[in-house]
């Protein structure tokens, strides 16, 4: 793990949505950090706030209904939330770019791939408007070749519907990396694809960011993908970070009861049946549980969990967990979530 200065540092971020009938307190004091050159995973189930966090970083949350009552998102020391529009435009694309889950929705169906890629190139290259149309066109070819798409020339003239799902996602990856961003946010980049195609796309993404030294945030609900792609993982539950660890440590020894439940629920290729999963359901954001938001479903719930929100306890150099079970000392309860 690179111990350099943080590239992105989210401090105590809260995001609420004002809707008819009340306020949804979705993010509730989230801390998140990405160091330069690091690949960080963000795991959690549907509706836990993964995508909301990422959209807050790029400031693409719809405001209203979203409001950000407090928090900072520092990108290279500068708070994104306080940036002026023209400064923000420079950060988007050149500083941070994003790959979305569904490439079909991410690409505009009425423009060709070229028509969508060329403005990106023109906007983000240092020469900007001084580039001729020919030069822009030529520069659009390289990223497509980098993502392993044959016949880039023809592809630039194609419309998204003429491409397969895997090709569309490759185009999106190519587009996102064409600006040589310092940070890439990949939101479930393989989820909408078939397994064999997902495998190809993820391997490609892995190799490219390795080559370009791009820092990555990988958002997913598939634990296996995190294990193969990242150095460090954050586990999120109901708008809170609950655990953060070096990837191999999370998988060999998950500490938070939620992480343990999640890990056990994954069906294994080695067989042995499927665990029951976690009882109960995700809380509503309208009136989230007091204290630890996981306490109504937690098998180890204590009195204090109902009253206080647990802070992060450092169990190990690169393993922290927001759970009162680990209060005060580093000796962790061993989780038997390894093989079975």
């Amino acid at each position, binding site marked *: 793990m690179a111990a350099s200065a943080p590239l992105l540092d989210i401090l105590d971020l809260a995001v609420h949505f004002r809707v008819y009938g009340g306020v949804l307190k979705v993010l509730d004091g989230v801390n998140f950090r990405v160091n330069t050159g690091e690949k960080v995973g963000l795991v959690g*189930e*549907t509706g836990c706030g993964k995508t909301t966090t990422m959209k807050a970083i790029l400031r693409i949350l719809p405001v209203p209904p979203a409001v950000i009552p407090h928090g900072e998102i520092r990108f290279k020391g500068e708070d994104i939330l306080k940036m002026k529009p023209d400064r923000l435009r420079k950060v988007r694309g050149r500083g941070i770019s994003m790959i979305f889950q569904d490439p079909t929705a991410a690409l505009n169906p009425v423009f060709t791939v070229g028509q969508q890629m060329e403005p990106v190139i023109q906007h983000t290259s240092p020469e900007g408007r001084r580039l001729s149309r020919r030069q822009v066109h030529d520069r659009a070819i390289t990223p497509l070749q980098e993502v392993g798409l044959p016949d880039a020339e023809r592809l630039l003239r194609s419309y998204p519907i003429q491409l*397969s799902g*895997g*090709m569309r996602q490759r185009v999106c990856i190519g587009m996102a990396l064409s600006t040589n961003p310092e940070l890439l946010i990949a939101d479930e980049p393989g989820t909408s694809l*078939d*397994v*064999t*195609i*997902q*495998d*190809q796309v*993820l391997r490609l993404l892995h190799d490219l960011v390795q080559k370009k030294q791009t820092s990555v945030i990988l958002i997913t*609900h*598939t*634990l*296996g*993908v995190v*294990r*193969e792609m990242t150095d460090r993982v954050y586990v999120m539950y109901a708008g809170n970070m609950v655990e953060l660890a070096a990837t191999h440590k999370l*998988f060999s020894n998950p500490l938070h009861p939620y992480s343990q*439940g*999640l*890990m056990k*629920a*994954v*069906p*294994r*290729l*080695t*067989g*042995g*049946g*499927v*665990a*029951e*999963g*976690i*009882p109960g*359901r995700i809380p509503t954001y309208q009136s989230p549980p007091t204290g630890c938001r996981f306490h109504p479903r937690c098998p180890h719930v204590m009195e204090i969990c109902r009253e206080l929100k647990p802070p992060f306890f450092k169990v190990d150099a690169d393993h922290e967990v927001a759970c009162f079970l680990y209060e005060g000392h580093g000796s962790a309860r061993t989780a038997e979530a*390894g*093989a079975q």
Partner: protein
Amino acid sequence: MNNGILRVEGLKKHFLIGHRGVVKREPVTVKAVDGVFFSVQKGETFGLVGESGSGKSTIAYIAVGMYQPSEGTIYFRDRDLFADGLKRSRELRKELQIVFQDPGSSLNPRRTVRQILELPLSIHRPEEDPLQEAMRLLEMVELPIEYLHKYPQMLSGGEKQMVAVARALATNPSLIILDEPTSALDVSVQGKIINLLIRLQRELNLTYLFITHDLSLMRNVATRVAIMYLGKVCEVAEASEFFQNPQHPYTQMLLSSIPVVSDEEDAIKSKKIVSTGEIPSPVNVPSGCSFHTRCPHVMDVCRRIDPVMVETSRGHIARCHLFEQPPERK
């Protein structure tokens, strides 16, 4: 391959999607299912695995009588399900039920759980007291009785799927087709549904045709597994044998592509074949063996001739020229 409770024989389903050419108009078809054979034994969980567009759901829809097969047929207890076209006796419909992938759209949002459960009861078991039965069904799927008066949108995704399971059970079926029953749900909920299904199977002596794209899940529920690729079955085997000793190159590719969460699983993942190439469009299926465009072992014969099913070991069947006994002579 005989005396299974459900026998799929030479099943084909081609959908007409348009015409090609001006002078000589040729029909353009999607070969969703293109010559499938397998049989499901009584009491087992038969897993049908494949990627999107492989035709696995089409087989499910044909089996419950939503589509008429283009060729071939399905036998249920040695009775041809399509002897009279799509018309089917009530008694036969009662025996075969289905649970769909997305419970959000398979349950009518304007009906309460009670109405949802009482409808099949009133048709297939009019002699019973519908309310008593609906209550018993909810109990069977471990949902509280108060849920009878709820509408689907008041339930979580997992609970909706339980209602869908209860509805399938309402007719006292002997075979249930589970079409990706948990892929719309989060992992933490999946386990509960799967274990419920396993318990119900044991208690009610059910047979399952379990359709999924998730091989890790299949490992844990299926007794036998069949892999489909572009409308055809590539490999059929007992689950344990299937995962330990995959034969077909496509199966090996699939197994090497799954993201896993432990070193133990990494060890059994086949690393021989790395995924390459795109899945061809089912409108334009490659000649010969449909997998030849992505197969690392491709031979000349694969491009010309479609391989036949070969038994490589007892009960283990693969459709690949690599296993055909002299490969040239076919």
